[in-house]
Each structure stands twice: as structure tokens, then as C-alpha cells.
């Protein structure tokens, strides 16, 4: 999902969100400042997207999100060159590339053409040991580059309450179960002294409480935006506009800027809905895309608007920002642990992922789902099955989203077009 920030606006037919423009500009300025500060000796943390960044925020240690930086490398078309550095060391250049790109950059010779001037060498790398490769991959920061790696466990639950999206905000203890929260909370307590060392300051629980409050408020704005888009009679904003406008503030969670940015997205969308704006004036098919985005062909999503009156109305990025982050509670450290200890399950692990897609499909009144199954997709049979059980048509496409070579765009376009033509036409009142 972090790949989303690499999206560049292209052909424009619908309204263009000012919030997306502002966010992109903010991101550049922020990064330039950060580079300047690290040159002057300030510490820098590199943190995986599903690890508790808020702890660094609360202690004023600047951090970069690993996958966001990967998206910048990809957008600047530097992935191939950097991955070569892995290959030359006999390391895989085709396993979890998205998490590996910043490491690959750090192992590559520094060039003048590094994206945004290049990522300064971090003082600490933090990641959860998900899957089989993360621990080994991140350990290379330490063994090859001397950058300390702090691993966190990635625990899994035996049983979970299905309706996580209803429970998570307040009753996360029930949704997740105490054991996993205890574990991450204990790990965070062990991590705090290390961050204190970096920060040269003591951890202040009050400050973390403020960060959590701001990020919860940001999540509420995202929720309102999502609900607004779900309920709007016609889709007012193209999905590729919403994604950067929502995602960039996610990397700044816990700041007033990010909360204000999320509010401005809501305000903007809300006035578009008020004006009765629509991406497709005669909206005949509302579609949902499940799976990674087609980063090599973003125009794909817009290409059925004129021809078929079909519009993609849902993005996982906004929906997760709406449902997956908010955690209220008196103990900010425990609430933070609860935000991340089951984070990936929300989108990847059945029954959570499966039932959540069904719920989102229904609330967004979609007429069909395009389900992209990439080679590393999980539980895709269950997702498709549950949607069809709920009466929602599903088109399955098997492809590797990161790699344009694995499918023929023309053929895929035709396949989706034919499938859309087979759907009931909403404008005829079916």
C-alpha cells in the first residue's frame, strides 16, 4: 500500500484535489529539511510501515518509512540499478524487493542522481519480523553497513473476533487478545531506552498521548472521508487522487500537519459532493479493486470511465486509513502496541481481511470487484468466495503488479471491459 505514493498524476479528466498537491509539496520540503538535519548530525531512524513509528515521533527522532522510500526509488526508476547491488553480493533481488530497496540503495555506490538527494544513512532500523525473509534481510543493515537493526516479533493469534472494524477503536483488547498486545508493549518498553539514547532525552508518556490523540483524530477524518465517498450518490473523486492525499499524511501521523491534511481532504471531498461533482456524470458501474495497485499502468483505473461509465470507487489505502489505525485508551503505549501488533492481519489474514472486503464492498454499493491475485497473494480463494457468496460479481486477474512484463495490458483491458459489459447496468435501475 505504501507503493501508492509513487503515483504521479497523469491524464486529468475529473477534479484534481488540492490536498494531494499540497501533500506532495509538503513531502519534498520535509525531506529536504530532514536531510539537512541529518547532515548536521541528527539521528535518523528507518522504520518499516507496519512498525510503531509513533514512538520516534513522540521523542522527536526523525524517521523515514522504509516502504515510502522504496516508492520514491521506484518512481525515480532507480530500482533496477539498486537491486543490482544485492545481486552482485549473491543476495536475492526478487524477494520482498519493496522492503529491500532502501537496503539495496545503501549498498550501492552513491551517485549524484540519487532520488531526492538520497536517503541519509540511518542510525537505527526498526522492523517486525514478518514472513521468513524480514529478519535476515534487515540483519544485513547491521552486518553489511554497521547500522543497528532492532527486530520486533510478528505474533499470530489462534482465534480472533471477526468484526475488527467495529471493535478496534475502543475495544481492541477484545479484537486482538491481550497476549499479543502484552508482547509488543513489552518490546516497546525495551526499545524506549534505545530511542532515548538516540534522542538524548527522556521518554515522556504525555507526549506520546498527544501523538496518539492527533493520529486518532487523523484516522477519524479519514473515516469521515471514506464514509462520505461510500455514501455519495456518484463517485466525486478519482481513486488515484485520493490515494496520495491520504497516504502522505499517514507517514506524518501524530503531527498537527497530518491531522490538518486529513481534515482538508475531507473538506474538499465534502464540497465536491455538495456541488454534485462526479467523475463520470452517468455512473453505470461502481467497481472495487482488491489486491496491489497496478503501478505500471495507473491510467488503467480511469480507462473505463468514458467507454463504460464505470468508476473505481474504493481504495484499500483510504479504507485502511479509515478503519485500521484508530486506537483509543488511557495507556498510550498499550494503545500504540494495539495499533501495530495485529496490523497486517487487518488486510491480509482471514477472517479479518475477507469479511472486511465484503463489508466495504457492500457499504460502497459496488457492482463488481476486480481481484488482482499476485504471486504472493494470500487467501485469495476465500476473498473471492466470500464476495460471491454475498452476491457480488468478482473478476479474478492473476498478475504480478510490480512487473509490467507479466501481463499484456491490452489483453487485460479487454478482459475487464468484457466483464464490465456483463454486469447489470445500474443506470437502468437493475
Amino acid at each position, binding site marked *: 500500500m505504501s507503493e501508492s505514493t509513487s503515483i504521479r498524476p497523469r491524464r486529468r479528466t475529473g477534479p484534481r484535489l488540492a490536498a494531494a498537491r499540497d501533500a506532495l509539496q509538503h513531502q519534498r520540503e520535509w525531506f529536504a529539511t530532514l536531510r539537512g538535519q541529518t547532515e548536521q548530525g541528527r539521528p535518523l531512524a528507518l522504520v518499516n510501515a507496519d512498525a510503531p513509528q509513533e514512538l520516534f515521533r513522540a521523542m522527536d527522532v526523525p524517521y523515514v518509512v522504509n516502504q515510502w522510500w522504496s516508492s520514491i526509488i521506484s518512481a525515480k526508476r532507480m530500482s533496477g540499478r539498486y537491486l543490482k547491488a544485492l545481486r552482485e*553480493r*549473491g*543476495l*536475492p533481488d*526478487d*524477494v520482498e524487493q519493496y522492503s529491500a530497496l532502501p537496503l539495496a540503495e545503501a549498498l550501492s555506490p552513491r551517485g549524484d542522481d540519487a532520488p531526492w538527494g538520497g536517503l541519509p544513512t540511518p542510525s537505527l532500523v526498526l522492523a517486525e*519480523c514478518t*514472513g*521468513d*525473509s524480514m*529478519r*535476515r*534481510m534487515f*540483519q*544485513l543493515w547491521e*552486518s553489511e553497513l554497521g547500522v543497528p537493526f532492532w*527486530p*520486533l*516479533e510478528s*505474533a*499470530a*493469534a*489462534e482465534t480472533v473476533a471477526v468484526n475488527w472494524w467495529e471493535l478496534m477503536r475502543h475495544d481492541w483488547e477484545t479484537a486482538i487478545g491481550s*497476549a499479543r498486545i*502484552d*508482547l509488543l508493549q*513489552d*518490546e516497546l518498553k*525495551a526499545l524506549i531506552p534505545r530511542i532515548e539514547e538516540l534522542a538524548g532525552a527522556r521518554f515522556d508518556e504525555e507526549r506520546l498521548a498527544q501523538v496518539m490523540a492527533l493520529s486518532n483524530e487523523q484516522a477519524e477524518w479519514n473515516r469521515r472521508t471514506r464514509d462520505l465517498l461510500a455514501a455519495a450518490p456518484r463517485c466525486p473523486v478519482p481513486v488515484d487522487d485520493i490515494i496520495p492525499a491520504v497516504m502522505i499524511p499517514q507517514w506524518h501521523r501524530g503531527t498537527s500537519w497530518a491531522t490538518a491534511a486529513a481534515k482538508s481532504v475531507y473538506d474538499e471531498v465534502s464540497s465536491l459532493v455538495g456541488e454534485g461533482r462526479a467523475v463520470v456524470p452517468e455512473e453505470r458501474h461502481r467497481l472495487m479493486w482488491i489486491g496491489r495497485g497496478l503501478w505500471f499502468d495507473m491510467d488503467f483505473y480511469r480507462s473505463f470511465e468514458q467507454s463504460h461509465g464505470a468508476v473505481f470507487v474504493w481504495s484499500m489505502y483510504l479504507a485502511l486509513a479509515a478503519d485500521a489505525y484508530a486506537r483509543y485508551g488511557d495507556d498510550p503505549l498499550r494503545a500504540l502496541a494495539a495499533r501495530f501488533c495485529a496490523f497486517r492481519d487487518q488486510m491480509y*489474514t*482471514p*477472517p479479518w481481511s*475477507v469479511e472486511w472486503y465484503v463489508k466495504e464492498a457492500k457499504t460502497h454499493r459496488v457492482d463488481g470487484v476486480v481481484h488482482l*491475485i499476485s*504471486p*504472493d*497473494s*494470500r*487467501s*485469495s*480463494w*476465500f476473498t473471492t*468466495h*466470500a464476495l460471491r457468496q454475498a452476491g457480488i460479481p468478482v473478476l479474478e486477474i492473476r498478475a504480478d503488479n510490480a512487473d509490467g512484463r507479466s501481463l499484456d495490458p491490452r489483453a487485460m483491458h479487454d478482459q475487464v471491459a468484457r466483464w464490465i459489459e456483463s454486469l447489470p447496468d445500474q443506470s437502468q435501475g437493475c
Partner: protein
Amino acid sequence: MRPIDAQQAAAALRAAHDDRALHARQFAAQGRPVVGYVGCDTPVELITAAGALPVRLAGRAGRDTSLARTYLDGAVDPQVVNVLAAILTPEDGDPVPDLIVITHDCDASLQLFYTLRELRRTGTHSCPPVHFVDLLHLPGEATRRYNLGRLSRFADQLAAWRGRAVNAAELAEAVADHDAARRARTALRKQRASALTGGEALRWYAASTAMPPRAYADTLTAALTGEFTRPEGRPLFVSGSTHDTTDVYDALEGDGWLVVGDDHDWGDGGDQPPVGEPTLEALTDHYTREVVPSTARTPQQIASAARGAVTRSGAAHLLTYCRQYDDAHRWDHPARAAAAGVPAALLRDQPYAGLDLPALTAQLAPQEAQMTR
């Protein structure tokens, strides 16, 4: 069990390997339950203490896995898909467990658990009840505390399942039996290179996961008193993916290799020190710190272990074998190869129970030529 001679013992080990349901059927015939498990860090003593026979679920080459592949798709080690097929549609010779226990030793095991949980929840397919024991392996105290909680929960689940808690005497006996099996396995590890083909050693190891532990300890100990001569073949150390069948070893040895050592958990890598004390705390320490799945080891740990094992076994070559989708081992291949100090090959994307022999030769030949120059 009657004392048996070395030859009979070897035949008994082979039988337990060739028919993995042999002992399970005997247990079932006595009205005792069988627990099928997946994961090298399964706390088998708790299962034994609860009066059940723990049998590690294994795949079989040539099995029809299309239904299993439908549910468990994505980049998942085909070995685990094969195990799922055995659970969904058992064939002759597959143990039919009353309960399945899965641990978090690697992503494939976790995905198998999620798949079975979802099949049961949605009523898509009937299968035995499944327990998941989420044991983790970072060195910190937080992990140890978490694991202690997982083990006590699992003990409670087993108690509820059989209707009675495990008592101290049962746990003590189970720990003693499994420790005896561990000691016998360690003796096998030390002797194998000079005594057995790799395929035979793997059969003897595999028997430990399908037999009652005390019977295994006695049988293996008896088998190891036999007279051995060192088998022929170019000594090779095998690292990377697990081998739950001997197909790959048999193919290698048919080609003139001799597998003298390995570090996956069905083979030498399953070597464990004894647990000792029959307490949940001791089991927690054991399964947190002594039994560390390869996915939880750092490349440095793997490299130094490989260096030691290659030296001890007298291996003159190293193979990192990666099944399709089991790519994690590729991250530590360079460090492992460098530490081993012998010609090393990496075979990736290998099919379940198969390997690309010409590719192995092609990778090793130039390195050998360079060494003899």
C-alpha cells in the same frame, strides 16, 4: 519393548519411515488419540503427556495437490500444500489425526493454519480440530514471557480436549522419553557421516516423528550398535529448505554424492539438547532458545553453524537447496558459502521432492576447477 538387534532395529526405523501411519494405527487400535503436528518447534512432550501420539505431518511426492492448491494458493512452499492435501483427502498410509497442532516456525506453517481455520469457519471443508501454538524466537525477555503464555494455553487446551489435565508424573515421563529420543538423535548425528547414506540417515531421523519417543530412543540406540562401513560418494552438505521425504537425497546419492550432513530440521538441524526439567518454564526456555527455526536465525548464526557442521562431517561441497517459494534461505547463502570454505551451489525454485542435478554440477564444476588449479 523387547531388546532387538541392530538389524531388526534398522528395519523398524525404516518401517516407521516408509509407513508414517504404522504407529498411529497401533495407537488408534488401542483407542488412543493421534495428534498430527506441523512445525519443528512443536512442544511434543505436552502431546505425549496428554496420552496421544505426536506424528509430524509430511508430504509425499506425486500426490494430487490441486484441491489444496486452490485454497492455499500464493507463494507458499509446495511442501505445506502437499501436507494440506494429506489433511483434506488422506490416502492410504497417511496418518489420520484426531487433532492438528501447528506452530509458527515459518510463514508456510502459519499460512497452513490460517487456511485450515478459514476452511473450518466457513464450513467449506471438514477437517480435524486445529490448535495453533504461536511460539516466537527473538532472544528478548518479552518473547520468553509470551511463549510461556502460549505453552500454558496449549496445555490447557490439551486438558480440555482429553477431559483431564496433564499431571506432573505424566509430564515428567513425557519429557524423559523425548529427551531419550533427543539423545539418540544426537548420537545419530555424530555417527551418520561415517555410517549411513544421507537417505538412510534421513529415514532414521524421520522415524522419530512418527514413533512413540521411548520406542524410538530404544530402537535407534540399538540400530546404532550395528557395524557400518562408510558409504561411497562425494561428501556433500545440504542446507536450505527442509526435506520431509528422501526423494532429493536419493536422487543426489544416485548421482554419486553422499549427503554427510544437513542443517534443516528433519535432519541434523532437528538436533536438540535435552529439556531436563519437566516444567512449563523449562519447556519455554527450550522452545524459545534451543529450538530456533532457520527463519529466526541470523545469517551469521547460520554461517557459523554451517562452518562447524561442514568441518565435522567432512563435506567437500555445500548445496543450498531452495524449494519454489521458500526463498528465505537465499539471504544467507553468500555468508554460509563463504563460511563453509568449500565449493558451494545454490539451487532455487526447486519443485517439491525434486532437484535440478545438471544445474548443481554446472555450478560446482568451475569452482572445483579453480580449486585444483
